[in-house]
């Protein structure tokens, strides 16, 4: 998996900030998602009530996850489909490959699926000689660039149309080199034609699932392009790859979550296409797949139950926390060095891949709390990022200087007399050092911090001293 080591994150974040093309592309996040989400959520007076219900639905489901999985499996089986359990990413890859081989697949089309990215499915199938065609426009662009998605909903939000036009000229064979690709319309039309051929020729279609419904054994996908539908309708086999926490009990519960999903993610009242697929086609159906399989992936999720990070399993991958995160907005998704970026990624990545792979991510936050406010599932993202920081500290991993400083501070903070004496000495000292400007441009042992910022100096008296004075003057 992507390694986001300490130095890597800092370097890539710095590079992202200096990348003019990326900065131009990132401006689209605010122009699009943020404004539209605000409009869509404020146009639904029940939004806050639905959010509370959605949280309760997921909490209930997670507390009974074993039983809902059993119920779901029963319904899938009854509708003629088959459920496969994959404890690890490798298990899931092997199951999918085996199914593709059984179907004699040479070409596989795919709907957009973060879980399939998580298990690195494409490389596995391609390694076995099977052609894989991503069909979501964004994912198609990612595939021909050999790039990685920078956003869980809008994979190519980091690119401009000129860069994409160059990719199309390079990667789409048999077309005149000088064809016009100057507009987004041109690009979409070309992708439509290229991918239509793939849809028609595919032997197997693989999709993810936004929801799995225990009551009916259905998988639900949400798209705007209709690519997911062509993927799961035209080939003779449909494989759903989904993680175990996607389960909800009933169709009614699905409705509640669907009312939040698009409004939070893209700011639409509903996505263009929401599709409930249940089992394979019936004997007399003129279209639809002859076989239907669901691969249920655990890959670390069951370990999150009953612990500090269980709430993260409520996530419905809408992307609102990314769109509203000042850090994401400044550096984009790639700098995180993790498949799942932004606040949800900062919590999920260390859970799925270990804190060693993602130590900086829980720190890549200004802790402004916007992510939690806009999260349709009310996930306490900042609190969980803090939890990761604590764990990291307890393990003794942060740099020595940082550790000693925090330990010293903790020692003093637990001893009020000592603390007041120290604060009473240091505050006026810093105030004197800062002079009339009231700002410190350099600090011993904190050069990295002050190289890009000034520290506002204390006014000269500590809070406690001022408070005592105030109380005394009141008493008079």
């Amino acid at each position: 998996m992507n390694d986001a080591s300490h130095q890597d994150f800092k370097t890539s974040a710095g590079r992202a900030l200096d990348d003019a093309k990326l900065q131009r592309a990132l401006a689209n996040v605010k122009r699009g998602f943020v404004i539209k989400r605000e409009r869509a959520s404020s146009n639904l007076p029940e939004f806050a009530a639905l959010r509370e219900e959605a949280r309760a639905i997921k909490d209930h489901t997670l507390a009974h996850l074993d039983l809902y999985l059993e119920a779901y499996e029963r319904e899938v089986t009854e509708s003629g489909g088959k459920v496969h359990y994959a404890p690890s990413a490798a298990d899931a890859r092997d199951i999918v490959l085996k199914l593709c081989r059984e179907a004699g697949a040479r070409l596989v089309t795919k709907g957009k699926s973060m879980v399939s990215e998580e298990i690195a499915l494409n490389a596995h199938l391609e390694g076995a000689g099977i052609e894989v065609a991503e069909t979501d426009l964004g994912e198609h662009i990612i595939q021909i660039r050999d790039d990685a998605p920078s956003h869980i909903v809008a994979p190519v939000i980091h690119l401009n149309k000129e860069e994409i036009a160059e990719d199309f000229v390079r990667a789409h064979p048999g077309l005149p080199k000088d064809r016009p690709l100057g507009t987004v319309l041109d690009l979409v039309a070309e992708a439509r034609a290229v991918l239509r051929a793939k849809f028609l020729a595919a032997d197997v279609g693989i999709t993810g699932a936004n929801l799995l419904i225990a009551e009916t054994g259905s998988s639900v996908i949400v798209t705007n392009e209709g690519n997911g539908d062509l993927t799961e309708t035209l080939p003779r086999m449909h494989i759903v790859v989904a993680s175990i926490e996607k389960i909800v009990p009933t169709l009614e519960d699905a409705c509640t979550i669907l009312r939040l999903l698009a409004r939070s993610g893209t700011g639409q009242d509903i996505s263009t296409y929401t599709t409930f697929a249940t089992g394979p086609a019936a004997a007399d159906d003129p279209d639809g797949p002859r076989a239907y399989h669901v691969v249920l992936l655990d890959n670390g999720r069951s370990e999150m139950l009953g612990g500090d990070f269980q709430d993260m399993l409520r996530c419905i991958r809408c992307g609102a926390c990314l769109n509203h995160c000042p850090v994401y907005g400044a550096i984009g998704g790639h700098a995180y060095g993790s498949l799942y970026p932004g606040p949800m990624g900062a919590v999920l990545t260390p859970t799925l891949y270990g804190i060693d792979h993602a130590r900086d991510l829980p720190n890549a936050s200004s802790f402004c709390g916007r992510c939690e406010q806009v999260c349709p599932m009310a996930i306490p993202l900042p609190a969980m990022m803090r939890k990761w920081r604590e764990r990291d500290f307890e393990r003794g991993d942060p740099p020595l200087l940082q550790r000693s400083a925090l330990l010293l501070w903790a020692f003093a903070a637990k001893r009020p007399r000592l603390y007041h004496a120290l604060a009473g000495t240091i505050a006026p000292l810093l105030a004197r050092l800062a002079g009339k400007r009231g700002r410190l441009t350099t600090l011993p042992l904190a050069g990295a911090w002050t190289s890009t910022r000034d520290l506002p100096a204390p006014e000269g008296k500590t809070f406690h001293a001022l408070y005592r004075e105030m109380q005394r003057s009141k008493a008079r």
Partner: protein
Amino acid sequence: MTPTAQARALILSRIRERLGVSGNDRGRRQAVEERLRRHSRNTIPGRAKGERDALFAMMTEMLSAQGAEVTRAATPEEAIRAIAEDLREHALPLRLRMGDDAELAALPWDVAPEVERAFGKAEDADRASLSRAFAAAAETGTLFLVSGGDNPTTLAFLPEVHFVLIRAGDVAGAYEEVFDRLRAIYGEGKLPRTVNLISGPSRTADIEQTIVRGAHGPKRLHVLILG
């Protein structure tokens, strides 16, 4: 145990261990069974509970805002004429692909004899198709189509223009009402292979957040509300 059964047992036991629960706890089992059997409704937005006229207005408004064209046809003749006119206006072949839906077959096709009809699932060469919606939820202008020989799923995705006819009486307010109607026909806990919720023509905003219609599915969605 087979490897499949082992993997299943492993995941379920991990979950139970982490939750500190047993799979045999009767109270837990009952809670789950009850919830699945009752499938109680959660909050339904007030906008979905309007009077009939308000629902039609919302249906039209939402669909139009999402890029669909909407025709309110008082009679079946009007609906057929609207389809024929649309094809002519857009210089499309006067040919429609459709399924075996009995209500569509019973429409007065003789008012537009020039429109040729082909039956069965959609083919790549089909330019225009017609489906009948099972129902609609006005709250977001969403049509519900169900798979089967009557209205094959491919009709909604392969052709560049998709006509959808819906009887005015089939327009509901909320999604939940439509799911109850599906339960009444297909049975508790059962659904046809595909239930498509369609709220506009195919679109993408993947490139620079610029919205373009006709990404992979229909470039145009023309909805005819009959009655």
